């Protein structure tokens, strides 16, 4: 690798710092809101809090219900369970479907890809009511499992398209080599295809996770127990009919976003290039 001239590095870092500043400025307001005792919007340009209190964080983190259950803990657990399961279920559905769409020929394949895309075009708001009836018929109301199914199908179209596009770039001969080496279709998939699709897997995993992690309307509508609500539902509780508890909302929003950042940090090492390099000639 060649070395970049110093001025270019400086330029790049300056640009990135600027971008980060633009990203951070509104976020700092959220931080300020979460730390200031009055929950008030600040009327100045200064995004740093004048007085600091952790009360809002405390309220959010220590919330418990009348039965003395530690709500935040349970809801965090529910959120992690739902989002984790959504990622797992959604990704396994998407990975298998995308693999088949990339590798096999079967009737209805092109049509299916189109339909996946089409489902994204109909505004979701109108689908809640029929969805509710449906889940009721399937006895999936009030269970985290039902929610997981809904979320994973909701994230499917993107995941399938993304993964299919990536699988298409993995040379077929690598799979055939594995077949010759005696791998079963499952082993080919696990040991050869998946490791090579890591960047796409990382992106889709993050996407599926986010689909579940930040959603509250369906979660509030489909779940019936305070303790199994996901965190966004708890967060949305701070928005009332007449007033919004901004300080707590901001604190909650920051808490909710922390795991996402962590997940992304963990996943980003898979966003590395040249995974298929050197595999095949030409």
């Amino acid at each position, binding site marked *: 690798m060649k070395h970049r001239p110093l001025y270019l590095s400086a330029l790049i870092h300056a640009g990135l710092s600027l971008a980060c500043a633009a990203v951070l400025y509104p976020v700092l307001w959220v931080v300020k809101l979460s730390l200031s005792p009055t929950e008030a919007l600040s009327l100045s340009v200064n995004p740093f809090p004048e007085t600091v209190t952790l009360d809002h964080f405390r309220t959010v983190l220590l919330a418990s219900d009348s039965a003395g259950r530690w709500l935040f803990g349970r809801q965090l657990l529910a959120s992690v369970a739902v989002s984790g399961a959504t990622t797992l279920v959604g990704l396994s559905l998407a990975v298998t479907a995308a693999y088949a769409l990339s590798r096999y020929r079967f009737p209805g394949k092109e049509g299916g890809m189109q339909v996946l895309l089409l489902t994204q075009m109909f505004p979701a708001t109108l689908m809640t009511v029929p969805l509710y009836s449906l889940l009721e018929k399937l006895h999936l109301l009030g269970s985290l499992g039902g929610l997981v199914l809904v979320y994973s199908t909701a994230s499917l179209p993107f995941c399938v398209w993304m993964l299919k596009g990536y699988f298409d770039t993995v040379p077929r001969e690598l799979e055939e080599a594995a077949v*010759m*080496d*005696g791998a079963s279709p499952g*082993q080919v998939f696990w040991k*050869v295809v998946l490791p090579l699709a890591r960047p796409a897997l990382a992106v889709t995993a993050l996407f599926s996770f986010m689909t579940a992690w930040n959603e509250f309307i369906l979660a509030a509508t489909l779940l019936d127990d305070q303790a199994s609500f996901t965190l966004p539902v708890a967060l949305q509780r701070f928005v009332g009919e007449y007033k919004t508890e901004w300080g707590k909302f901001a604190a909650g929003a920051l808490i909710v976003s922390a795991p996402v950042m962590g997940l992304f940090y963990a996943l980003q090492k898979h966003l590395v290039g040249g995974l298929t390099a050197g*595999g095949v000639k030409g």
Partner: protein
Amino acid sequence: MSDVQLTNIHKSFGITRIVKGVDLHVRSGEFLVMVGPSGCGKTTLLRLISGLESPDIGDVHMGGVRVTDTPPRDRDVAMVFQSYALYPHMTVRENLAFGLELRKLPRKEIQTRVEEAAGQLELAHLLDRKPKQLSGGQRQRVAMGRALVRRPRVFLFDEPLSNLDTALRVQMRGELARLHRKLGATMVYVTHDQVEAMTLATRVAVFNGGKLQQVGSPLELYNAPTNQFVATFLGSPSMNFLAARRESGTLSGPGFSLPCGVDLGEVKDVKVGLRPQDLRVQGDGEFSGTVEAVERLGSDGYAFLQTAAGPLVSRFDRGTNVQVGDNVKVCLLSNALHVFSADGEAAILHPGDERPRVEVPA
């Protein structure tokens, strides 16, 4: 028993017919070399044997058992891909061990086999690299190694030495021949290299346009090609062909006339095939022409002539002085005449034949 029998194999991709009715028996323990021009379906045939493709029509038997519908991993076959197909996310060691691990071989055994193969292929110092850190030739050797460690009944090699330097190629060739003797496995080997074909093969199969042209020992093919294609394909420089007319005991064309002691029957127009190795530039001979180019291989070499009957390549011996622009004479060594039908589809006569091989009508 690990013979491979292909029976009336047909294969198309979409509407293009690629393999058009191939019957071929690869004998157990044989080293069969497949040759043929690029795109003639050699790789496709290997894939049909390996089970990566299944034939549209026809059957594949291995060891007397029909395996047409058997998946590749149950055929006990290893294949070296033309494009290597190394696993990019695994080290060389892992690449080599992969197939053995899948077959649940004991760890010890895997290690010894990997190390043995690495030694044979001079890969020992590269075992912990990833494919993208290897040179083209090194990659190709890893691809070979992956097949070797498996020790299957049947090896399929798709141009496995094409990327190696000459010295290494010679060495690998020797290694392969030794391995073949040692393992006694059946090997099917695709190559574009004549020397490889001639030196390694028990038998050579020549393909063209999806059809098997001829199969036989290298010498058989060299001495008695069944048609013009095979004759052209083997031997370097390739055989000369001149259109000729049969006139009672002689075959003559513009500016030449060759005696032919065998009665060829009714046929009038033929093609005579003359191997450059059987021609000599001499003071006197059946042909005369102008030298257009000279290829010297040390002291002797080949002269490229233009004669009245068309271009002609002839050998010249050490001591013969041939220069571009010279007018020279060329003579045919005795008993070296090949005769083909005018369309080149059939061989009528090869040196040493008493009777024409086929009856070609006038």
